[in-house]
């Protein structure tokens, strides 16, 4: 990925948006003017490589500078290891440590052996397996609803562009500035008595799935990405007689895989993390996801088994992250850009 140079703050959002565009088969043109000044860089080991930074090659040749910087980097790496991985390693250790050892000597390395039963007890007896499945279902459904709303919405706002699209766009963006707490009570009452449905959605997964679709952030990301796709392709498809639906399904979506990936990651992770809303609308423990269930079982569960439950809940997001690092990190940068 290449980041074109941007000299001012407003260019930042464009820079990150361009980053996602840059992954598209058709490299975007709007930033070409700025990017042309520099030779195109090859795909790097890390997406945060690029630019020469504030330490020049000459600085690195200076022994004092080089030693100082390397020491700082080593300290930083050590701290990041302790702070970033430390708690998770401890959690992994507790997951297979007998409760008595966890309580008496939390930092000793297996003084009285390993207790694998923590994990199986958490999975079977505490029924983490069930809540795990609920969490996956909630994430999958939320992902689906968010994708449908964001792709079709972005398609209307960016490609079809009806006269009233500007108003819709404004209304969608306006919701970005409303803190979500404002929605809490009225949304709860809406779920309690949804318009035109006649039955409460409390204790139904739909109560989590449907509201998750109202994410202005997704729609903005999608619209902006569709904006960067070359219009000529759409025109050509229309000339060939493609219907709006065909254009959407066979042209726009296949060209938008990078942003679909980013939005998917956002959607799944946000759903996995969500706590307050599922707690309010899923009152039946059998329906609750891990995030809601874990605090509830904390006091009545053996500590070792409980920490094993925490470890199981952490595993999927962490593995997911390590597998799709690039997507996550470009998404995180993007998040900052759009929120601004």
């Amino acid at each position: 990925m290449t980041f074109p140079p941007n000299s001012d703050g407003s260019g930042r959002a464009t820079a990150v948006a361009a980053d996602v565009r840059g992954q598209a088969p058709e490299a975007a043109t709007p930033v070409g003017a700025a990017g042309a000044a520099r030779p195109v860089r090859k795909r790097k080991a890390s997406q945060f490589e690029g630019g020469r930074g504030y330490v020049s090659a000459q600085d690195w040749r200076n022994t004092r500078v080089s030693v100082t910087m390397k020491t700082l980097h080593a300290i930083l790496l050590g701290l990041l290891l302790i702070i970033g991985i430390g708690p998770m390693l401890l959690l992994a250790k507790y997951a297979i440590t007998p409760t008595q050892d966890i309580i008496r000597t939390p930092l000793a390395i297996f003084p009285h052996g390993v207790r694998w039963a923590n994990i199986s007890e958490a999975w079977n007896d505490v029924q983490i397996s069930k809540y795990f499945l609920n969490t996956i279902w909630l994430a999958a459904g939320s992902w689906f609803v968010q994708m449908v709303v964001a792709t079709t919405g972005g398609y209307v706002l960016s490609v079809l562009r009806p006269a009233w699209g500007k108003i819709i766009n404004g209304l969608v963006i306006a919701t970005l500035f409303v803190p979500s707490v404002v929605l809490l009570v009225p949304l709860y009452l809406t779920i309690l008595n949804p318009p035109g449905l006649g039955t409460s959605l409390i204790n139904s997964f739909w109560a989590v799935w449907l509201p998750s679709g109202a994410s202005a952030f997704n729609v903005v990301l999608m619209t902006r990405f569709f904006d960067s796709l070359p219009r000529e392709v759409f025109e050509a498809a229309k000339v060939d007689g493609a219907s709006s639906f065909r254009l959407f399904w066979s042209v726009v979506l296949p060209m938008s895989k990078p942003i679909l990936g980013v939005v998917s990651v956002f959607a799944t992770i946000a759903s996995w993390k969500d706590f307050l809303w599922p707690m309010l609308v899923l009152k039946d423990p059998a329906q609750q996801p891990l995030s809601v269930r874990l605090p509830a079982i904390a006091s009545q569960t053996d500590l070792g088994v409980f920490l094993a439950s925490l470890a199981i809940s952490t595993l999927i997001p962490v593995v997911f992250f390590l597998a799709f690092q690039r997507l996550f990190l470009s998404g995180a940068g993007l998040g900052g850009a759009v929120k601004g």
Partner: protein
Amino acid sequence: MSALGAPRRAGDAAVAGGNHRPGTGDAPVGRVRRRSPVTWAQRGGLSSVVFALPLLVIFGVFSWWPIVRSVVMSFQKTNLVGTPKWVGWHNFQYVLTDPDLPTAIRNTLYFALLALVIGFPVPLVTAVLISSVRKRKGLYSVLAYLPVVVPPVVAVLLWKFFYDGSADGVFNTILSYVGLGPYTWLSSSSLVMPSLVVEATWAAAGGTVIIYLAALISVPDELYDAAEVDGAGIWRKVWHVTMPQLRGVLLITFILQIIGTVQVFLEPYLFTGGGPANATLTILLMIYNYGFGSSLGGNYGAATALSVMLAAFLAILSLVYFKLTSGWSKS
């Protein structure tokens, strides 16, 4: 906001050269004005509506209507049976005279301030340092981001265990190596808030680090070259080139962090439930307690009134902030 608007305009500009608005551009010029429903449908007006339906329904029912309803409800007395009654400013009066409100405001501001003092410099320094790493920069950023992917509930529950107040608690054990403690982290009214802030910073800093890293690599090389020609050392390059170049991002993350921390809920709710002795009662916890804290049915009027006031406060705060700082970030 400008950062939102700019890329869209850039996209539009790129498109404008190619064709006109796709929805209407194909029709013969003379007929554009008078449109019957049939020609409208033929030109794709109908498919626009069909494609907009998911967005309109979902946003309408689950976003736009609740936002409006929130304002309406703040002037009503609502219970689950019977029709809502208009009560004027009564809900606002009720909230503003609640003896817990000053405590909640003080705690919330204290949390936001501490989060700023602890949480603002940490990601900045980390990102600036990472950006100068030459080998395995990816490893650094992955490590920094790792806590962000831990589910927040798990993070809080794990840290709650770390904060155990007995001498065998994890943090107390670590501190005992250097002869400190033991501290009763979460049940001490003076230590509890900093404890919450440290956990919250741990959980969130990685995201900010990544935002800064993305901004850092877009600092133009020429500026550093020029600074070196003028004989600037590393420190002066960081201070006089890197920092001013990050100004735009910093201004935004600053206000975003305040907006975020003022709405803190998860940490006080799960760590302490507002205790000890209301030392961690925050505004959002109050809203939650009004609306859902009692099994007898919520005081929805008070909950919405407080949330509307909070939203208004945040809106005014951001407006003032952007007015004040618009001169600083020449963007």
